[in-house]
């Protein structure tokens, strides 16, 4: 399994090196390929950071221009994708500052990591001194009514997920979008957002469990 993962990783690195060579040689098809592959994800991550979709699109455009400007200097120490998302996040940050609405990531993260958090409402558990099941479920989760065959219902479910993500605080939103939508690894997210591994995990935990709670309200009211 690990050997397989390593093989896939290795192939990705080789593919990336080849793509980079073509880009530097001025191959337009290679650029189109990269734009097609990464732009939707860049737009989604940008939208978690700036106020409007139009500004997000601008940030993404600026990112690609920044990529072109920096391509010859890119040293390949990180993955190409990680490097591009870092450019995006820095652009988005600058843009956010210009819009007077963001604070540095570090303080955003600190604010979101602060305080207590409960993945599940504490009221749903038995007290710690319960004689049979201390801190066990008092109100356990109920089965969700999911009907994947009903496209309309499924669309509504996805809308609940989308809304749930939208409601999250900025850092949690960025972490869940990068991890669970864009398929970044934990290490890559830490690198792009300048987070310690444990903090990345806490933000992810808070984000995922809150989205689960929204789904629960919708699917097992």
């Amino acid at each position: 399994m690990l050997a397989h993962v390593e093989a896939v990783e290795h192939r990705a690195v080789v593919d990336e090196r080849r793509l980079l060579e073509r880009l530097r040689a001025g191959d337009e098809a290679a650029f189109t390929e990269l734009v097609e592959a990464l732009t939707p994800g860049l737009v989604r991550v940008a939208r978690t950071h700036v106020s409007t979709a139009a500004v997000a699109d601008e940030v993404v455009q600026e990112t690609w221009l920044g990529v072109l400007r920096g391509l010859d200097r890119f040293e390949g120490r990180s993955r190409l994708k990680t490097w591009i998302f870092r450019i995006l996040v820095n652009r988005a940050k600058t843009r956010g500052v210009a819009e007077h609405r963001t604070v540095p990531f570090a303080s955003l993260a600190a604010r979101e990591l602060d305080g207590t958090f409960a993945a599940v409402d504490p009221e749903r558990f038995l007290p710690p001194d319960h004689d049979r099941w201390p801190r066990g479920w008092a109100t356990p989760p109920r089965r969700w009514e999911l009907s994947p065959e009903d496209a309309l219902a499924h669309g509504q479910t996805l809308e609940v997920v989308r809304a749930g993500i939208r409601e999250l605080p900025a850092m949690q939103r960025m972490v869940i979008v990068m991890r669970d939508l864009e398929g970044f690894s934990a290490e890559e997210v830490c690198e792009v957002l300048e987070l310690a591994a444990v903090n990345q995990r806490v933000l992810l935990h808070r984000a995922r469990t809150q989205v689960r709670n929204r789904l629960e309200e919708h699917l097992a009211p």
Partner: protein
Amino acid sequence: MACQELVERVTDYLEGAIEAPDRRRLEEHLAVCPHCDLYLEQLRLTLELTGELREADVAPEMREELLDAFSRWQRSPRP
């Protein structure tokens, strides 16, 4: 492991960021607690549904502007 602890450790578990003794306690609990088993299943489903939100193609205007930028870059003098 108590249910209330499990729901706070699931992400560490899914991320493989949990010490072996805790992982054992968690898995032993899952084996006997259908409620927590269901909770974990629902969390996995949440991740799956989140993954399905990927859509949206590149807007044609953006693609055009980017290709213009690329040809300008191609023509520009480079070190």
